[in-house]
C-alpha cells in the first residue's frame, strides 16, 4: 500500500491508456510522456505499461506500507526517503523501506516525473486502464491527501533494466529550445503557404494554460485561408489544431476524440515526450520532417 501524504500540484495514476475506444468517444489518455513511463517501469522491473504515478511539477509525498523497489524517470527532481532524508537517484532502481516517507521536490527541468513501484499501482481499472482521463472524467480521481493506493503484482518485466540498456533514454528533458518534427496535417491546405512556413520559422512559447489535454502555444497568429466551419473530425495525439485565434494547441494524451478546428500539422510520435515535458515559458520549434 502507498499512502498519499500530499499529492503536489497534480498527481494522477497513468499507464498506457485506453487505445481502440475512440469510436465510442473514449480517448486514449495514459502517460503524457510515455517514454518516461516506460523507462520508470523497466527500472522498477515492471512491464512497460504498468500503472505508475505521473507527477506534474513534482511535490508528491507518499509513505510505503512495505519494502518496495521504486524508480523515478522524466522531469528530474530531488527525491529523498526516510527520516534521514536519504537521496534517491533519478533513472535508477531504488529501495524504499516499509514506513518510509518518500518526498519529491520540484523538477529542475521538465514538467512530468513518473514514479513506478515494483508490481505497479493496482487501483481498479476502468475500460482496461488505470489512467485518469482528465478531460473525459474517466478512471481514478486525481490523487488526494489520504488516498491509499494498492500495490499490484504486475509481473513479466524481468529483472530491473540498468546501465547500458538505458543508454539514450535520458534525453527526454532536454534544455534549451526543443525541436519537434512535424508532418503535414489533414487541413494544412486551410492555410496559405507563408502561414505554413511561419509555423516552422518562428519559435512558439508554451503558455501556462497547458495541461494533459494539450500544450497551448503563443506566437504569431496562424490565420486561415479558408473561411467557414469545419465539421468535427477525428483527432490524434500530436495534432496541432488551430482555433480561431490562430494560436495552435498541440494535443497530448487527454485530447478530445474529435475536434472542429483545422489541424495544420502533426508532431511525430517520438517527439511528443518533448512537448509533454515543455514547461510554460519554454520556446519550442517545429521542423518539417523530410
Amino acid at each position, binding site marked *: 500500500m502507498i499512502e498519499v501524504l500530499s499529492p503536489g500540484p497534480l498527481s494522477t495514476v497513468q499507464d498506457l491508456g485506453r487505445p481502440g475506444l*475512440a*469510436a*465510442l468517444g473514449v480517448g486514449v489518455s495514459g502517460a503524457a510522456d510515455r517514454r518516461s513511463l516506460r523507462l520508470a517501469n523497466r527500472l522498477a522491473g515492471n512491464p512497460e505499461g504498468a500503472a505508475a504515478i505521473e507527477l506534474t511539477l513534482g511535490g508528491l509525498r507518499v509513505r510505503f506500507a512495505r519494502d518496495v523497489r521504486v524508480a523515478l524517470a522524466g522531469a528530474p527532481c530531488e527525491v529523498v526517503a526516510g527520516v534521514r532524508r536519504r537521496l534517491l537517484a533519478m533513472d535508477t532502481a531504488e529501495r524504499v523501506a516499509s514506513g518510509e516517507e518518500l518526498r519529491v521536490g520540484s523538477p529542475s527541468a521538465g514538467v512530468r516525473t513518473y514514479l513506478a513501484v515494483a508490481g505497479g499501482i493496482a487501483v481498479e481499472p476502468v475500460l482496461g486502464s488505470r489512467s485518469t482521463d482528465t478531460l473525459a472524467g474517466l478512471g481514478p480521481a486525481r490523487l488526494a491527501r489520504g488516498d491509499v493506493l494498492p500495490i499490484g503484482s504486475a509481473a513479466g518485466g524481468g529483472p530491473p533494466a540498468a546501465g547500458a540498456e538505458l543508454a539514450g533514454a535520458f534525453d527526454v528533458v532536454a534544455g534549451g529550445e526543443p525541436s519537434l518534427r512535424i*508532418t503535414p496535417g*489533414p487541413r494544412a491546405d486551410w492555410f496559405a503557404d507563408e502561414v505554413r512556413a511561419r509555423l516552422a520559422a518562428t519559435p512558439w512559447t508554451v503558455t501556462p494554460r497547458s495541461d494533459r489535454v494539450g500544450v497551448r502555444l503563443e506566437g504569431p497568429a496562424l490565420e486561415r485561408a479558408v473561411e467557414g466551419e469545419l465539421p468535427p*473530425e*477525428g483527432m490524434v495525439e500530436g*495534432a496541432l489544431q488551430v482555433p480561431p485565434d490562430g494560436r495552435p494547441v498541440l494535443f497530448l494524451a487527454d485530447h478530445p476524440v*474529435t475536434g472542429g478546428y483545422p489541424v495544420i500539422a502533426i508532431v511525430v510520435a517520438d517527439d511528443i515526450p518533448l512537448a509533454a515535458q515543455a514547461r510554460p515559458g519554454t520556446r519550442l520549434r517545429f521542423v518539417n520532417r523530410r
Partner: protein
Amino acid sequence: MSEVRLLPCGERAMLAEVDDLAAVLGLHAALEAAGLDGVVELVPAARTVLIAFDPARTDATAVGSEVRALDWRPGAREDGPLVEVPVRYDGEDLDDVASLAGISREEVVRRHLAGSYVAAFCGFAPGFAYLDGLDPALRVARRDSPRTRVPAGSVAIADRFGAVYPRESPGGWQLLGRTSLSLWDVTADPPARLVPGTRVRFVEAE
C-alpha cells in the same frame, strides 16, 4: 461508390473525407466489414473517418490503396442493432424548440417520435452518439448559453442531430425529455449502448 479523399494525419493515421454523413456511414460500415490488415481503429465523424493503423504492420500507402479499392455505397447498414429508447417528454426546452420550429409542443414530440435514427458517430463525451435521422422541421440551433450540468439520460436535439446524454455533463443541446435507459456502463462491453451503426427509435415512456 462515391469519392474518398485521403488526407495525411501523421505516421499512424489518415483521414478519409467523403461528401456527407450518409457517405461516412457507408464507408465506415465497409471499413468495419473489410477489417483491413494493420488498421487498429476507425473513428467516424460528420464528414470523415479517421483510420488509425499500426505502423509496424502497414503504412499509409498500403492502407490508402486498400481504402480506394473498397466497394461501398452511401448509407447506414440496415442490419445494425436496434435500441428502443423510452422517453418522458418533459424537457426544459420543449417550448423553446416549438417556438423556434414554429410548431406546437405536441408536434415536436410527434415528429421526434416518428424518426428512424442511426448513431452516426460519437464525440463530445464518452458514449455521446450523434443520431442521424432528425426530422428537418426540428433543426434548431444549440442554446445560446450552454448548461453547466445536463443530467444523464437527457434526450436532446441540436442542428441536424439527436442525442441522449450518456452521463451528466455540461451541454448546450435543446432538451426534449429524459430516458431511464442506461446508455453508458463502464462494466459493459461495449460500455456505450449507442455505438456507431446502431439504429435508434424513441418511444413514449409509460
